[in-house]
Every structure is written in C-alpha cells, then in structure tokens.
C-alpha cells in the first residue's frame, strides 16, 4: 500500500492508503482541492524516498506556488514534466510524447517505488476524441502499473462532460469524487470514495478541510 500523504484519508482507506500498482482518479469542481491531494501524495513519496514524477500542463512555478499555498515545503520537489520550467517539456498537442516521456522517466527508475501525479487527463480529453483517449490512458496506466507505479490523476468537472468522466472512471482502480454542497447559506466541501480496488463499496460523504497544516477528513453528519 502507498500512503496518500493524508493520515485521515489513509485511515479511511484501511490505514495504508492507495493500493500498490494502482491508478487513482480524483474528480471534482475546479479549485476545490484536487491538486492538494496530489501534492500530499507526492510529498509523502518524497519523504519515503520514492521516485516521484509530476506531469502537468501548468508552469512549474504555478504548481510550486500552489504547493506553498497549502503549506507544503518545496525544498524537496518531484521530477517535472511541464509546460514550462522543467527539463522535459510537456506539449498538450503531442499526446504521444507525453506518454513516452512519462514511461521513459519511470523506466529509468524501475528499481524504486514510483509515484506519478498528473493533471493532463482533462486537457487531453478536451483536445482529443474520447475513444482514442480511452485507449491511450488504458495503455499508459497498464504500462505504468507494470513498472510498479501508483498513478494519481486529476480530472476537472469543469472541463469534461459527465459522460466522458464516467467512461474514463472505468479504467481507474480507485475513484474519489470531490464536490461542493449547498446546505442553507453555507457551502460544504465533501468527498466520497466511489470505488477503491480491494475495498468494499463506500457509502456516504466525508467532509474535508485544507489548511497549511494539512488536510483533515471527517465523517459528514447532517
């Protein structure tokens, strides 16, 4: 098992976190904190000495600023594949090179446990047909899992229609959904685990809060 980087989420998932050799998808509204889950996942890996790769369509400086914003130290950083600020450049118009670069970086570190976090799923789904992306991601995730990697991918509710996301959820071993819910005049950020490899189906929602000291997950009582 691989720690999520969030102790309360580890507990929720059975004390240990995400399954080994798995692909986890986090779906949610923009700005809600999906990226933060990815940052803690990567930070946890860096602390444990895992090889961590972050493939992003944003500039590295943007991601580092966001990391600092949620209280994550940027002294230790993952290897980057990004639109700017990294040795390996990510071009959203060239999905083949993205896949090639990720697989090559992972292959070069095959003796270590590997964590890959990426936010390129939604942009690629916007720019390419669903069918080709379904095959593309199926192949990429399968190859990475063979290299003993745990993959953490983000999907934006705001970019992809629900039917596209539902289709993509099928090729992931775990799916976490993060949403904002309206209760009277207040707005509550909630999440639910839609599925997780090796675990029985989860029921109900969990509240979460993000601060500079980390993320807290707690049962949601109405």
């Amino acid at each position, binding site marked *: 098992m691989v720690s999520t980087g969030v102790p309360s989420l580890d507990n929720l998932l059975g004390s240990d976190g995400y399954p080994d050799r798995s692909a986890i998808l986090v779906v949610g509204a923009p700005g809600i904190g999906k*990226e933060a889950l990815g940052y803690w996942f990567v930070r946890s890996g860096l602390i444990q000495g895992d090889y961590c790769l972050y493939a992003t369509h944003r500039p590295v400086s943007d991601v580092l600023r966001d990391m600092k914003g949620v209280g994550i130290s940027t002294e230790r950083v993952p290897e980057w594949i990004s639109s700017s600020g990294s040795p390996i450049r990510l071009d959203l118009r060239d999905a083949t090179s993205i896949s090639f670069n990720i697989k090559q970086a992972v292959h070069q570190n095959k003796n270590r446990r590997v964590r890959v976090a990426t936010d390129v799923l939604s942009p690629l789904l916007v720019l390419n047909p669903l069918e080709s992306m379904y095959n593309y991601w199926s192949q990429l995730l399968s190859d990475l899992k063979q290299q003993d990697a745990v993959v953490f991918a983000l999907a934006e509710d705001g970019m992809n229609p629900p039917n596209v996301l539902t289709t993509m959820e099928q090729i992931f071993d775990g799916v976490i959904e993060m949403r904002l819910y*309206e209760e009277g005049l207040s*707005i509550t950020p909630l999440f639910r685990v839609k599925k997780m490899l090796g675990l029985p189906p989860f029921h109900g*929602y969990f509240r979460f809060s993000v601060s500079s000291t980390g993320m807290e997950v707690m049962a949601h009582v109405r």
Partner: protein
Amino acid sequence: MLDSIINFVGVLFTLASMGVLSFGAYRAIVIGRVLIRGIYRNRAFWTGAVMAVGVIANLLLFLASGNQFPLFLVGTVAVLFIFIDSSIKVAQDTDFFHRSILAWQRLRNSLYVVLLGSSMIGFWAFVFTSMNTIPTFLAGAQYFAIVGLLFSYSAAALIVSARRTPDRTMRRFVRMLGLAIACFVIYLTIWIPFSPFSVTVQDLGNTISYFFVAGASYYLYRAVMSLSPVGHIEKETA
C-alpha cells in the same frame, strides 16, 4: 406626481442593486473560503470586494451630493478596471495555449495610462471647478467617453477570453463579468446626458440608468455564483 413615481422606481432599482450586491459579497466570501486553488479563490474574493465597492457606490449615489459622487465614481471605475484586467489574465492563463486576447497583454499598460490621465483631468475638474460649468462638462464628457471605450474593449476581451478558456467554470465567470461590464457601460452612456451636468430631466435619466446598475449587480452575482458549481446531497446516500 410623475416625478415621484420615477423617483420611487429609481429607489427600488437602487435598493435591489444594493440587496443583490450585499448578498453577493457575502456569498463570495463563503465561496472563496472553501476554494483551495489560488486563481479561483482570488476571483471569488475579488468579486466580493468589487460588489462591496458597488454597495458603497450605491449608498453614495443616494447620499452624496454636489461634487462628491463623481469622485467615488472615478475610484469605483479604477477598481473595476483592475479587476477586469486581472480576470482577463486569469482567463488567458487557463487557456492551454495562452493565446493573446485582443492584444490585451500588449496594450494593458497603455490602457492604464489613458485611464489614469483621463481620471486626473476629471478629478481636477470635479474638485477645482464649480459644477454645471463648461470645463466640468468637458472634463466629464472626456472621462465618460474614454471609460466607455475602455470598458467596451474590456467587455469584448472578456467575451473572447470566455470563448478561449476550456474551463467551463471560468468561462461562465468571465462571460457573466463581461455582461456586467456591458450593463455598466450602458449605465454610463445613459448617465452622461442626464447627469448633474444637465439637471432638467435628471430623475428620468437616473432611473433608467439605475436599471442597468441593477443588471450589472445581477450579472456580478451570477459571476460569483458560477465559481462554485454546488450540488445538493442526495438523502439516501448522505
């Protein structure tokens, strides 16, 4: 009698604007607090701040007299322009390919200089000349003409940036903001001929322009609400 009705309708529009802006500012803070990522949180807080400025401007519209209100109008316009500029930049950042939006990034510094120059002339005229004089009228006319042009260009840039961004949340936000700005431009356009510079049919002009202030307030409210696509919890699964 007719004057009283026109005045009453104007008051209703102003009260509606203030209600929408106040509630919107509150919602903006609530939404901003639950958003984690900086660009969305900042948009929520920015919109809330602009709505709060709108409430104050509306209050002054009621309470201020003589040459007080135009000064606050100059301030409100400046805040609004900075807000528009930052929103266009955010929309451009969310575009995967960071394409230029009507050359906004190249022209923005010049636009700030033009707005600052025009504001200073307007400010000088409002403060150092007496109202209802030709210099005041000319200073006001050049100010509103420049602001009208700048904001029309801004509204066009917002609409283009809304079409470019792949993020539906940001697209809705920028589109609503563009509509709010369009209402504001119409308000200024209507307000000029009926402004304190020509007091004969001032009440009618004000009432019509307040309608567009109410429209701008509504679209600002929609803009801030679009940042938080909220759902409702299903009872059986909660």
